[in-house]
């Protein structure tokens, strides 16, 4: 799609060229017509002068040399005449050895080429009757200088036209840029929206943009609202299913089944499977993913609460440290990220001896999150398996299994990558690379 700026420039140039050329041409034509009318008057006068110079001589008609202009005597002077009458034709001396044809009809005519210098002639023919004879007098004037002048005028006009066009284009560019500034601002705001730096578009826009911006804001609010509603519904569903499950789990380990140990084991295993599946699928369904462009996660505001929660759950003996630059904002939904970090850290806390560290940093491609613990870690060859199978390396502690599965779902929804490494603290390092959004 071409930019509006380019379209406007192209349209403007086309209009200006068509109109400019037409106006310039018409002006020149009108001017030339006026000039020719003026020159015609001069030529008519000239022919009348020649008529007056015709006198009756001893051998019939005679041209009184004294009465005609000296210009007719000088060869190729640019002023010529030809007089046709019954006895013959007289030509001015200035024609020298060239022939000027008699004009086809009386009146003005231009376009005759004459002589070695290619003079353009503007000629006038007048028919008179004098001394009892029909006399046709043609007078011609070199029109080349005028033509030359017009051509130069045309060139100057063209040059000025091009200059004016350039000037207009520059001014138009400035005007258009200026009037398109709200559009540019909206474009930048949409980019910020994708980066998670804002959650709404600015509503203070020109009336042309108002419906668009309103609609975008409406859609954002709508998406957020329906996400909240669906999360709420999922929460209710979870509640409706998990409470009976809790009853069943409690029943399965109650005294009443003590005499049926096989039934008890079976019941517990099946219930546990239901529980894991339910937790996993509900969590997956809760994910906002990329649905909310305006989402953001304020590390400074959220992490202390998360870490103190974990500290409370896992006891005071565990050192929970974070290595996060201050003021870092991550462009993902708050609940999704809390779920990701909560599960990662919870997992690490379950395995750690005394220390768990969380690190987040912005990289060129996006963001990198890593969680270290000083627990036993996972040997290199087993790490692949843990990730591949959605991980049930350890089913007894429902940590590595379920937790990492949920983490993997979230990371996949964000098109990120998760790797298990050896931690400098001695245990496991889970490293997650997340690409920047809106690319």
């Amino acid at each position, binding site marked *: 799609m071409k930019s509006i700026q380019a379209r406007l420039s192209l349209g403007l140039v086309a209009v200006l060229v068509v109109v400019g050329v037409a106006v310039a041409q018409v002006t020149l034509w009108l001017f030339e017509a006026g000039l020719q009318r003026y020159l015609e008057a001069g030529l008519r006068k000239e022919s009348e002068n020649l008529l007056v110079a015709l006198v009756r001589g001893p051998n019939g008609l005679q041209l009184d040399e004294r009465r005609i202009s000296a210009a007719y005597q000088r060869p190729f002077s640019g002023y010529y005449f030809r007089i046709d009458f019954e006895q013959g034709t007289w030509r001015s001396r200035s024609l020298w050895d060239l022939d000027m044809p008699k004009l086809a009809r009386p009146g003005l005519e231009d376009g005759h080429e004459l002589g070695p210098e290619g003079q353009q002639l503007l000629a006038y023919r007048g028919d008179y009757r004098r001394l009892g004879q029909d006399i046709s007098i043609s007078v011609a004037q070199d029109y080349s200088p005028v033509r030359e002048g017009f051509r130069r005028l045309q060139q100057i006009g063209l040059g000025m036209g091009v200059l004016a066009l350039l000037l207009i284009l520059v001014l138009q560019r400035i005007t258009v840029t200026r009037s398109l500034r709200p559009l540019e601002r909206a474009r930048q705001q949409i980019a910020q929206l994708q980066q998670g730096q804002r959650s709404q578009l600015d509503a203070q826009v020109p009336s042309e943009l108002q419906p668009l911006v309103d609609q975008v804001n409406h859609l954002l609010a709508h998406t957020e609202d329906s996400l909240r509603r669906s999360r709420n519904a999922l929460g209710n569903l979870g509640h409706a*299913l*998990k409470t009976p499950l809790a*009853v069943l*789990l409690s029943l399965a380990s109650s005294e009443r089944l003590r005499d049926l140990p096989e039934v008890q084991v079976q019941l517990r295993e099946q219930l546990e499977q239901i529980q894991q599946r339910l937790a996993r699928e509900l969590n997956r369904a809760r994910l906002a993913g990329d649905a909310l462009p305006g989402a953001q996660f304020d590390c400074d505001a959220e992490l202390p609460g998360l870490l103190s929660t974990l500290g*409370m759950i896992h*006891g*005071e003996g565990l050192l929970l440290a974070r290595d996060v630059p201050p003021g870092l904002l991550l462009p993902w939904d708050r609940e999704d990220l809390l779920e990701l970090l909560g599960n990662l850290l919870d997992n690490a806390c379950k395995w750690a001896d005394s220390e768990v560290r969380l690190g987040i940093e912005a990289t060129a491609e996006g963001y990198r999150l890593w969680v270290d613990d000083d627990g036993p870690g996972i040997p290199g060859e087993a790490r692949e398996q843990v990730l591949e199978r959605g991980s049930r390396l350890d089913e007894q502690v429902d940590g590595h299994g379920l937790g990492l599965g949920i983490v993997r779902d979230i990371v996949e929804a964000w098109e990120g990558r998760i790797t298990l490494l050896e931690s400098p603290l001695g245990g496991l390092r889970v490293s997650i690379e997340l690409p920047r959004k809106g690319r």
Partner: protein
Amino acid sequence: MRLLLVEDNVPLADELIASLQRQGYAVDWLADGRDAVYQGQSEPYDLIILDLGLPGLPGLEVLTQWRAAALAIPVLILTARGSWAERIEGLKAGADDYLTKPFHPEELQLRIQALLRRARGLANQPRLEAAGLHLDEGRQCVVREGVDVQLTAAEFRLLRYFMLHPQQVLSKSHLAEHLYDGETERDSNVLEVHVNHLRRKLGRSVIETRRGQGYVYAGSSNG
């Protein structure tokens, strides 16, 4: 130990009450959030188990009102809403622990024991120890100098309360309030009988009598 269970699901509440009573806790049960706000403040509970999805008043609101009224009893939240965002909210509202449904009954038992010990400043002890005695809460027996001493349910309850409050003078009415739920007839003679049984099994000096005041747990170290 007297617990308040606030849970609106009747079958789950039945199961929990049965299981908690087997573990020697006196349990009061409420299903409505508004009742819980009042009763949590008016009765001397040692721990409260609070469901979040309650009729009448949401559990988080109940908890917020308790904490606003400076109620310091440990609260364990029990909920089906297990997302981390909700956990953080719950703990910010003043909960001491958070258990998501469905859970194993043993998990709940361990969390309750840990919370009760933590509330007494006895954090991170796998077994309850006080003044020379070890109480095994799983088997409901007491270990003295490496020898198991079997206890009846009532003796276990009484001894556990003493061991969680060592060197404190506990009146008979205080003990009765914390050892029996709201519906049991409180007879101080029964308490005396149980104290005597404990003395017979563990030595006279385990529990001292302060005349007119009550009892003090002294343990077997100085006996």
